[in-house]
């Protein structure tokens, strides 16, 4: 993205399609005299594009309060949005923990959430398959739900054969992950898995 604001690249500083008189009067050599910048190292040399520069944070449509997704320090982040796209993520000066500062990963959060490596489509690999296939999301959800129900039924243990103690569980389904997720997500996972009787539920707190 053009670092110095939106200017049509390649358009030179002199010729900008305005009236001849404007053109001549904007010629920096003349401005060196008018603006007392004899050596042409100051304001006279400034191009109209540079003068019109404004930071993306000022021209953004919205600023959203967020928290860095990387480590557990919990640094405050400000997410700037323009035309439905994230244009900048930087530290939140109001955070009493981070005071507007970030580490290299926190500073790279915009690159993370807009990374070209991100996937946007469901990918499906059939058993013994050799390549990915596409799959509509709702069909994938249906297939996963079927498999949960089928596996659960096939591996259900109502009670312990030996002691007769109630088990009401399945050891056919396991889950791993949670430390990078929200509390609300962890809650629904634990609630649903427990109701399904799945007990091999784990996350990164354990590694």
């Amino acid at each position, binding site marked *: 993205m053009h670092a*110095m604001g939106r200017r049509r690249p390649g358009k030179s500083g002199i010729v900008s399609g305005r009236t001849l008189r404007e053109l001549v009067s904007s010629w920096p050599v003349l401005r060196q005299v008018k603006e007392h910048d004899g050596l042409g190292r*100051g304001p006279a*040399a400034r191009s109209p594009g*540079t003068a019109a520069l404004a*930071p993306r944070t000022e021209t953004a449509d919205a600023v959203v309060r967020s928290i860095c997704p990387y480590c557990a320090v919990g640094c405050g982040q400000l997410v700037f949005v323009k035309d439905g796209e994230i244009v900048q993520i*930087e530290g939140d*000066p109001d955070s009493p923990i981070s005071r507007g*500062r970030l580490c290299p990963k926190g500073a*790279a959060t915009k690159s993370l959430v807009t990374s070209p490596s991100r996937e946007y489509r469901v990918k499906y690999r059939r058993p013994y398959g050799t390549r990915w296939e596409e799959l509509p999301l709702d069909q994938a959800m249906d297939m996963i739900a079927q498999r949960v129900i089928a596996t659960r039924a096939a591996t259900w243990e109502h009670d312990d054969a030996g002691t007769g103690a109630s088990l009401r569980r399945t050891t056919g389904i396991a889950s791993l992950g949670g430390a990078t997720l929200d509390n609300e997500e962890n809650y629904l996972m634990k609630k649903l898995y427990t109701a399904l009787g799945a007990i091999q539920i784990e996350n990164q707190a354990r590694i």
Partner: protein
Amino acid sequence: MNEHGPRVGFFTDTSVCIGCKACEVACKEWNGVPEDGLDFRATSYDNTGMLGANSWRHVAFVEQARPVPSGDGGGSGVRWLMSSDVCKHCTRAACLDVCPTGALFRSEFGTVVVQADVCNGCGYCVPACPFGVIDQRKDDGRAWKCTFCYDRLGAGLEPACAQACPTDSIQFGPLDELRARAARRVSRLQEQGTAEARLYGHDQGDGVGGAGAFFLLLDDPEVYGLPPDPVVTTRDLAGMWRAAAAAALSLAAGVAAVFAGSRR
């Protein structure tokens, strides 16, 4: 001083730098600076190498076998220097002086900025810089360097690197204030026994008239890849023009001389 307030600058206190490179990433993220190659350089934890068109911030890492002072459990005989290098925004800037198109200009904040919509890639600033900061970007042709976040300054914001720096090693503010603060910091460090602490680029009498981004270092500047006594080349320009004039005159005289005496 001008109507935009006092000249601003950076004071980088390398004694509190933890080499995290947040400055490098925050700068690239704000300015859209391209990624600069994934090569392992085996130069301690520095895989950036140096400042350039695609690295406007560069954190240097120097591992030193430090003679273990007796008694002081100062650690395991190792010292690891870290420092975030940046364009110096010199008071007397060679790149600004030599730039033929006015792409480089002294901003109202006292910083030195390259205008990407003016630069025609003549490359003159590259060998002129006594710190080896600015460079031409391959396949783009133009010269690039730290702009001191000129667009952010315009809106009263702090440069991206200074805001991100976790330990406030990079401090942004009015240059005079920073110089006073730095002087206090270096004398306090020296009192606490860090005798090797010294300032670099703070002295307005040096060869570039004092840097707009100056440093507190813990060893000689060249250990960090910095020139010990940089001088703006423009200081000697007048002498060069005199020599050129003399040469021109001797050329003219020489040519005239060959016609002396005979037409043939």
